[in-house]
């Protein structure tokens, strides 16, 4: 059990609101589930508890740079997920390499 697991009803609503992952392959579909579980609560929903609102991730790989200003590459996004960035927590030890791969695959689908 973990306190990061989110309510399926919320996850479902968020998934409908932001992804529309029609035609996704199985890796992207798994990545979407991980996104809803671990990312959407901060990146998709303005949260009054946070010091700074994290950036929305739509079109992440359709720009040259990430919101941090770093190049929009898989490796840079992987580094951000594993190590965290500023107030974003590190997911080191909680997501497997395969999870991170699937998550990045899904992020590529965000327009």
């Amino acid at each position, binding site marked *: 059990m973990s306190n990061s697991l989110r309510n399926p009803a919320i996850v479902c609503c968020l998934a409908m609101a932001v992804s529309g992952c029609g035609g996704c392959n199985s890796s992207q579909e798994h990545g979407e589930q991980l996104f809803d579980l671990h990312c959407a609560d901060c990146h998709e*929903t303005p949260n009054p508890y946070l*010091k700074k609102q994290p950036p929305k991730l739509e079109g992440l790989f359709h720009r040259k740079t990430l919101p941090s200003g770093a190049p929009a590459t898989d490796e840079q996004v992987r580094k951000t997920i594993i190590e965290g960035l500023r*107030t974003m927590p590190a997911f*080191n030890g909680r997501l497997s390499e395969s999870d991170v791969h699937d998550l990045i695959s899904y992020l590529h689908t965000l327009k």
Partner: protein
Amino acid sequence: MKGWTIAGLAAFCMIAGGCHSHTKHYSLHGKVMDKDETAGEFTVMHDAIPGFMPAMTMPYKVKDPAAMRDVQPGDMITADLVSTNDAKDYWLQSVRITDRSGRAAAKPAVKHTLEIGEPVPDIPLTNQDGKRIHFSDFKGKSVLITFIYTRCPVPEFCPRLSSQFAKIHEDMAKTSDYNETHLVTISFDPKYDTPPVLRKYGLAYLDNHAEGFAQWDFATAGASDMHKLADAFGLEYYEEDNQITHSMDIVLVSPEGRVARYWATQWTTAELEDALRRQVKSSAPSVRERVPK
């Protein structure tokens, strides 16, 4: 037992927007971590409860005398979770033990949580610079202490606590009381939260102003010292799958080094800040004067 995740529940209800005034029933599955017969509560580490609550560890009132008698810490249970009055009232009934094998490994409940006015033990900590610090270093100052871990992913938990402390630090820096106060954020996760990790984390909340560490330490304690801290302040934490389920606690320590107040349920940043400043104002000048700055 303190009701330490009610704030999380309230936040969750706001987010979900699905809390109704009529009675609702949910199925709860989880492990009983603690039993408080006086309060009539179990603290349960439970799976996600769709429509009510994410997976969490928190206390629940139990309206089942037989269960209150028979269930022991370590037991796995299922129960009917009843919620009424917009989820302001909720309790467990029809509790059934599904596995008793965890009893032997359950943590003994013998501990002494400091009462208001009791002195805080001078437990050594290691801060973000790898420097050994003690609570006694802050004698003469009003001190707010909270507990987090840097990989905590739930915005309503550690990020909330650190964001609130950041706001308090920012506000206090503009006042003449700044040097009479100190903030201490202690990590539950010394294995991962090494001094460099804590420094990076702290800088994020200090907007990269490293001079802020003079009034805000990010620290860890050794394993046995962390247990002493947990007992002293009534903290609860359990590690599982690289994630730590923990209580939300804030402690105000007086300039004399005594527990002045606890927050474990509802609080606002303004309330914490006000209490911190009042503690400065109420401290006897003699205490402040005799402590070298």
